[in-house]
């Protein structure tokens, strides 16, 4: 399906990433955003609030992020495409109810323009430290999809993609951007509507009396109807059967409790190959591979160039999709390369996924960053140089001492014996 021309402000612009995401949401067909202001994401909400009415969409500023995310799930079951917009502290509040979103299979998108944390942290500067929270933040077992754009153009393009994925797989989709990309102004091309591919909602159109709200299709994703269509839906966060009814029968509980959550997990895991989007370059003869995402990828490009100038064979793997994690890809590379180098703006999150998937076959080097800034490409180049020379297999993640850390912490803290 193509985008509706009414939703698409076609043209070539100079705009920041937040604004581009607001335009992307509308172009994707978003009809409802419930949000609560938080730096550095506010411009996305402001943009949507400004452009929404002409397309018949609504922005409502809720009383807090608990309300924002709950309203988005309600709107989703009302039959519209929907999103919320936030950053660190608000994202934490939303975790409470994300499990409900997964459980009731409401399609919706969360835009997280990450900032430095923990707590209020550095509200106006960048960070990439909410990556694990995205995956594990709400209680219980569930799966989500997370993607990480690296430019304002991508905040437009991948916001649309996030909506498409959430409609296709009926799960929460997180756009894990960050302050740097959100506040960076660059050229953004908004194409004509007929060039924008839109995933429609998977509406059920069989006989009414046969409808089972949680009976999956071949790809494990069920078809949806909306409130007000006369189906007498029963949608609950309790473990439920295909009718949506809670499983209360004690005899069946043990057996069938397994079933609904298993499907929630498997509909993402078994479709991972279709969901995951990666960008790789220079892999053929690579001895070291840099694995990065979002803004750190853009910085890594320069670090890789510098290492290549010294003749080092280094590959560049960008995780556009961070969750589900590309396990297979990393394991396959691990058997071929000496080491992975992972720059990320935190003290180690995705690097442990890389370590998990390399199964001890390759060294794994973390280039940490405490946030409020991006890496120095020289650190990345030097870490690559080290990684290519290191012959020993080191059985833990190696932390690269960056210039910044050496300068600020004089090489790191030590405990007094």
């Amino acid at each position: 399906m193509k985008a509706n021309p009414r939703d698409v402000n076609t043209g070539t612009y100079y705009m920041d990433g937040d604004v581009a995401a607001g335009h992307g949401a509308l172009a994707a067909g978003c009809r409802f955003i419930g949000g609560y202001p938080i730096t550095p994401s506010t411009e996305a909400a402001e943009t949507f609030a400004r452009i929404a009415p002409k397309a018949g969409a609504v922005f409502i500023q809720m009383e807090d992020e608990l309300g924002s995310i709950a309203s988005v799930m309600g709107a989703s079951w009302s039959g519209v495409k929907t999103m919320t917009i936030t950053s660190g502290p608000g994202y934490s509040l939303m975790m409470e109810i994300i499990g409900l979103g997964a459980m009731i299979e409401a399609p919706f998108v969360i835009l997280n323009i990450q900032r430095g944390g923990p707590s209020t942290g550095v509200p106006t500067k960048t960070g990439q430290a909410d990556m694990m929270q995205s995956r594990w933040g709400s209680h219980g077992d569930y799966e989500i999809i997370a993607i990480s754009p690296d430019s304002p153009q991508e905040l437009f393009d991948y916001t649309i993609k996030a909506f498409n994925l959430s409609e296709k797989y009926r799960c929460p989709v997180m756009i894990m951007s960050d302050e740097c990309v959100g506040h960076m102004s660059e050229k953004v091309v908004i194409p004509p509507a007929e060039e924008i591919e839109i995933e429609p909602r998977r509406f059920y159109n069989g006989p009414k009396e046969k409808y089972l709200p949680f009976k999956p299709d071949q790809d494990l994703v069920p078809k949806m109807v909306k409130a007000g269509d006369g189906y007498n839906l029963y949608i609950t966060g309790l473990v439920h059967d295909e009718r949506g009814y809670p499983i209360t029968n004690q005899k069946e509980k043990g057996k069938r409790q397994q079933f609904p959550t298993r499907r929630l997990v498997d509909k993402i895991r078994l479709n991972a190959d279709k969901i995951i989007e990666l960008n790789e370059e220079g892999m053929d003869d690579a001895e070291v591979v840099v694995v990065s995402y979002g803004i750190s990828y853009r910085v890594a490009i320069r670090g890789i160039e510098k290492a290549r100038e010294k003749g080092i064979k280094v590959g560049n793997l960008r995780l556009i999709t961070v969750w589900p994690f590309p396990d297979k890809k990393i394991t396959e590379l691990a058997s071929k390369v000496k080491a992975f180098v992972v720059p990320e703006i935190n003290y180690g999150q995705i690097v442990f996924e890389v370590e998990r998937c390399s199964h001890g076959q390759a060294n794994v080097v973390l280039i940490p960053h405490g946030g409020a800034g991006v890496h120095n490409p020289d650190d990345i180049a030097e870490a690559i140089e080290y990684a290519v020379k290191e012959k020993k297999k080191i059985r833990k993640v190696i932390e690269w001492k960056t210039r910044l850390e050496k300068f600020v912490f004089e090489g790191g803290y030590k405990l007094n014996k």
Partner: protein
Amino acid sequence: MEPLRKTEKDIHPMDDLLRMDRIPHIWCPGCGIGTAVTAFAAGLAKAEIDLTKTCIVSGIGCTGRVAGYVKLDSFHTTHGRAIAFATGIQVANPDLKVIVFSGDGDLISIGGNHFIHAARRNINMLVICVNNFIYAMTGGQVAPTTPLATYATTSPFGCVEPPFNIPYLADSSGAVYVARWTALHVRRLTNSIAEALKKPGFSVIEVISPCAMYYSRINRLGDGLDMMKFYHDNTEIRHGEDTKNLDIGFQTKIIVGKFVDRERPTYMDSYNKWLSGTKKD
């Protein structure tokens, strides 16, 4: 044992409005929630509104289970978030009338912020709050509605905090319709529900209800029937009473009635008015 075959006579007039395939329900004997549901179903029938365009949302708690027994589009959400969830349903599709049916702890404590803001915005929804003065589902803990000096499992020496007066809270936050009844006042409650269902905007009906399992037992007030007798002897109907005067103490008189019934533009009225302004330029 063979299930008894249903005859014409056995079909309950509310079969159409309740999910009979989910009966037996979870509520204890002597609980007031069932009565509130009966009044609700009767109110729905009486209001003669389009049931396909009517949704019910609950939070979590004994009362939170109501949505699951009512044969409408029903949503059983998370603790405290029912009103926010319902706000999304309503604003995304203004043709829908949404009822939020939940407990005092759910709506007034963890969901208190959503309650006052939905009232302020005047979202088109009816909130039915079953107030049993306690957190029943979790086993009788103190609630923000527990009267002073009342026992609860987490106020073993008597509640030291003053409770919220729900009608006053709703009134001062902007609700357009506010009433309070007890589980004894089934007919009046039914009429109130039918009236509020037709009223555009944010309506609140508080239903004082016995929790025979915890509230009465912990406070040695007898069973559900004794509580009903207490309501019978100790309630006074005062329509239009200033909501400031509706505090409830431990086993004190309970004032019931319809206190607020006024007109105010709903959220969607205001939104559309503003929208028609922007469309011009």
